[in-house]
């Protein structure tokens, strides 16, 4: 074949081949998503040999999914994520670099997406906090913090000068930077204990005490106060635009200067980049698509339609963008921001920062002590990994144990062989469930538990033997009596489980007893209404409960107020925070026990109770001595399993108290999650916690064994 022929043949083959697929994952919604997908569709149509497959995912679980899928070859070619991820992902090979980025991109944004001198993504948008102001309450946005404090006198009664989620370190950061502090010091080390950081804490605490900023304000409360005209200013990010009421006459401006230092209150900057997966199958068209998405034309579209603060310089000069007052304010703020450091250590600073902030704001600690404690906590969670251990003794021991186990099992089977043969039917009945469980539950756990013998830090895994367990059990990280030590948390977890199960079973059984009476009218209606908490996704109902426990505006304090009770700050003491978690989880958990009891009650012949009634037994005696003993066999499994589930019920803790105050209301499983996700991805440590949780439950099940199997 001549070379001309070969080229012609290749061209024909190319035209006939299926278009190559470029996969892109993102977590955008609303107008941002529409603008992005419009731009991609247009490109997709123009590029005949490429077909773009877009997948919109929820932000929650986005990184976990990417981390699981990419190494297996199931991940996307491109993904849109915050630049903070770049450090951790690039060092595990999950990302590939952009060698020749298009020119004309904002230098700050490019720098944020660079790690170890390699650019890992093209900047789509920059996001930071700004100042929102209600034009009906303030004529012009304040330019210094003194002007904010001075607002108080001019505002109507009951209107806060400024609403901000002050207990969140992300929302506190502008003051920290404005007072000259920061998370890192000049030499690039984490230094949470800088005196300037303490000064910022002092200032915020004073503003809450003098009523400039509402106490215990969450993001939800900020929206509510601003929308109702009860806050003149709000500090929030671009996502807030979707939450502001249509009727509100508002403006957007850069954050003010800190009067004490004359420095701008600089918020953290998040750069959303389009990143190239290190496992991309089509890197070349993926790079082209990425470059297209940051082109001037698409960036103007994303700015105008998607309301994004884009990072393409030419687009920022475009009249559609430059003349937009809201986008203009975000653009102006961009010059006074601190890009969130993308080094992996940064992710471990949020938790100590949050604890320090909350301790100061609820008056439990002085700012100086709080920042020092924060630095110590940071040192604990980023402590160097245990020294590598020699795996040989462990392997030998594991081998011996395996041989011993197999021999023991084989001997047992051999001794019982005739009995086993007799019960072939029974084994056939049990086998399907048993095999399914062994494969899909036991095997993944065994693999996961094996991780507890390793240390995963700085993306290196080393065999450390039982060192993780030793650290936890010997309380080498947190002192024994501190809220985060294994033992304190274990005690709280046991209390949590016992209280929940008692209430779930007590309320569930009581309601089921009432609901079974045949003479009861409307019992069908009652039954359906009472299982509602189980039916509705608990993410929203748990947050409604959290809202009800809000100090100033929550329904619970409003009801207590009717009886003359002073507003309770629910999440600043262990007992009340625990009670709030417990109330929420009881509300969510009793319907299950009620349904189980309703079913179990059907196995109990009513004539027995009637006979007891004829014999003169009281209602309670009948229940205690006739109904309950008969109920037990069917109810006990639910009680035992219910306690196991409650033991590991992380959602409610996470959503309602968030571990407040100071980690006291955390349970063991939430510690495992924190090590895995909030503290530098120390999976080995998290796995060790998980194995310990399992061990504790195993001991518990041994204790309940007698109730369960003894009865049958």
């Amino acid at each position, binding site marked *: 074949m001549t070379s001309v022929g070969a080229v012609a043949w290749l061209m024909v083959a190319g035209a006939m081949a299926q278009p190559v697929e470029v996969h892109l994952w993102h977590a955008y919604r609303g107008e941002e998503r529409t603008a992005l997908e419009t731009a991609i569709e247009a490109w997709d149509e123009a590029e005949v040999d490429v077909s773009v497959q877009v997948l919109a995912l929820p932000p929650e679980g986005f990184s976990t999914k990417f981390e699981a899928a990419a190494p297996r070859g199931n991940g996307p070619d491109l993904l849109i994520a915050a630049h903070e991820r770049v450090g951790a992902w690039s060092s595990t090979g999950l990302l590939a670099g952009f060698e020749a980025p298009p020119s004309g991109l904002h230098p700050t944004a490019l720098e944020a997406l660079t790690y170890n001198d390699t650019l890992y993504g093209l900047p789509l948008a920059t996001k930071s906090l700004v100042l929102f102001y209600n034009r009906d309450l303030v004529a012009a946005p304040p330019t210094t913090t003194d002007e904010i404090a001075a607002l108080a006198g001019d505002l109507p009664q009951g209107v806060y000068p400024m609403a901000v989620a002050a207990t969140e370190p992300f929302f506190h950061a502008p003051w920290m930077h404005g007072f000259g502090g920061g998370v890192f010091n000049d030499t690039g080390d984490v230094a949470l204990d800088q005196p300037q950081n303490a000064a910022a804490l002092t200032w915020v605490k004073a503003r809450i005490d003098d009523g400039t900023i509402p106490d215990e304000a969450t993001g939800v409360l900020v929206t509510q106060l601003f929308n109702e005209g009860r806050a003149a200013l709000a500090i929030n990010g671009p996502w807030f635009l979707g939450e502001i009421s249509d009727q509100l006459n508002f403006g957007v401006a850069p954050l003010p200067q800190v009067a004490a230092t004359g420095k701008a209150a600089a918020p953290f900057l998040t750069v959303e980049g389009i990143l190239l997966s290190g496992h991309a199958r089509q890197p070349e068209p993926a790079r082209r698509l990425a470059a297209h998405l940051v082109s001037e034309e698409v960036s103007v579209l994303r700015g105008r339609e998607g309301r994004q603060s884009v990072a393409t310089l030419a687009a920022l000069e475009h009249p559609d963008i430059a003349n937009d007052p809201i986008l203009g304010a975000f653009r102006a703020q961009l010059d006074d921001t601190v890009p969130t450091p993308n080094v992996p250590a940064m992710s471990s600073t949020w938790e100590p920062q949050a604890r320090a902030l909350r301790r100061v704001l609820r008056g439990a600690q002085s700012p100086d002590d709080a920042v020092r404690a924060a630095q110590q906590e940071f040192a604990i969670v980023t402590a160097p990994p245990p020294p590598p251990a020699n795996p040989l003794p462990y392997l030998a021991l594991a081998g011996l144990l395996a041989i011993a186990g197999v021999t023991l099992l084989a001997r047992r089977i051999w001794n019982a062989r005739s009995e086993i043969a007799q019960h072939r039917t*029974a084994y056939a009945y049990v086998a399907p*469930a048993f095999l399914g469980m062994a494969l899909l539950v036991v095997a993944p756990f065994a693999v996961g538990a094996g991780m507890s013998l390793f240390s995963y830090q700085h993306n290196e895994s080393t065999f450390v033997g039982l060192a993780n367990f030793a650290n936890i059990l010997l309380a080498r990280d947190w002192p024994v009596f501190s809220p985060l030590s294994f033992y304190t948390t274990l005690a709280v977890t046991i209390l949590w489980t016992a209280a929940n199960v008692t209430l779930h079973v007590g309320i569930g059984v009581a309601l089921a007893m009432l609901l079974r009476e045949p003479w009861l009218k409307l019992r069908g209606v009652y039954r359906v209404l*009472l299982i509602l908490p189980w039916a509705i996704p608990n993410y*929203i109902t748990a947050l409604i409960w959290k809202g009800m426990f809000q100090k100033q505006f929550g329904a619970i304090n409003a009801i207590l107020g009717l009886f003359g009770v002073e507003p309770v700050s629910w999440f600043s003491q262990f007992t009340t925070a625990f009670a709030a978690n417990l109330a929420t989880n009881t509300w969510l958990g009793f319907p299950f026990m009620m349904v189980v009891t309703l079913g179990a009650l*059907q196995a109990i012949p*009513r004539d027995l109770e009637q006979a007891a009634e004829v014999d003169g037994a009281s209602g309670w005696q009948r229940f205690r001595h006739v109904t309950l003993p008969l109920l037990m*066999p069917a109810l006990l499994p*639910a009680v035992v399993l219910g306690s*196991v589930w409650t033991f590991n019920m992380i959602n409610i803790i996470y959503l309602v108290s968030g571990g407040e105050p100071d980690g006291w209301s955390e349970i063991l499983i939430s510690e495992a999650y924190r090590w895995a996700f909030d503290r530098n991805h120390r999976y080995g440590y998290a796995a060790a916690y998980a194995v310990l949780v399992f061990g504790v439950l195993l001991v518990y099940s041994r204790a309940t064994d007698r109730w369960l199997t003894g009865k049958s």
Partner: protein
Amino acid sequence: MSLQGCAGYAPHMAQASPRAPSSIRRVLTHVVLIIACVVVLYPVLWVLKMALTPGQAFSLDPNPLPTVISFANFWDVVSASEGGTWLFGRQLFNSIVVATITSAIGIGLSCTAAYAMSRFSFPGRESGMRLFLVTQMFPGVVMLIPLYILLDELGLLDSLMGLSLVYATTAVPFCTWNLKGYFDTIPRELEEAAIMDGASRWTVFTKVILPLARPALAVTGLFSFMTAWNEFIMAMTLLSDQRAFTLPVVLHGYIGDHGTDWGHFAAGAIIVSIPVMALFFALQKQLVEGLTAGGVKG
């Protein structure tokens, strides 16, 4: 236990109507139930309020009744479509398929296992029961990635069947324990009589035991269904196609890193809970008509 035999021997007596309660007891019962319903409904009404109020703000207002009523949020959630596919309809269908398969596999696996554990005394029975319980103690935090790899190797990623299998195995322990507890209360004399008449074990199981265990089957059915219906993180990790998603994944898509579309989320939460309520309503009859309602014909 001698008491257990009574239900079988005296089913007609069980149907005898209980003595009429005093009117004080009637009123008290209603009062207690109404208080319980108010406590249950208060947060639920709030969800409804957020769903019916236009906009995406979370309401902290103690009044749980909506001041404006608009169905825009419901419409936004339901009308989601992509490339000519009615996405929401497809995802609702997926959820129903996954939850139904989960219930079918869950009940199928667990009722046979529970029957064997209730009726036969075979070597390994106790350890087996314990093992079922023990699997519930594995914290999920360490299992996700190994499970992902396993399902990938088995070719079960991105399939509703694979997802249902995972859910079913997590539902099996409770279902087995609960059914076993219930089977234990069914008198053995019934089966022995049927076996004497020449029925096989399997016939006895399907024709005698299962019909009697309807209340427990209803409980386990509802439980398996719920295991699959509201689960988010597995579905999100194992599925990678918009058209294969189940509703919890869609619902969590309204939760942003910072802001959340509360109106959409609340409307979705209400929609998601309706099939559960309908299922419970349909199962109610089974749930309250067990032995005492004359299920025993032997």
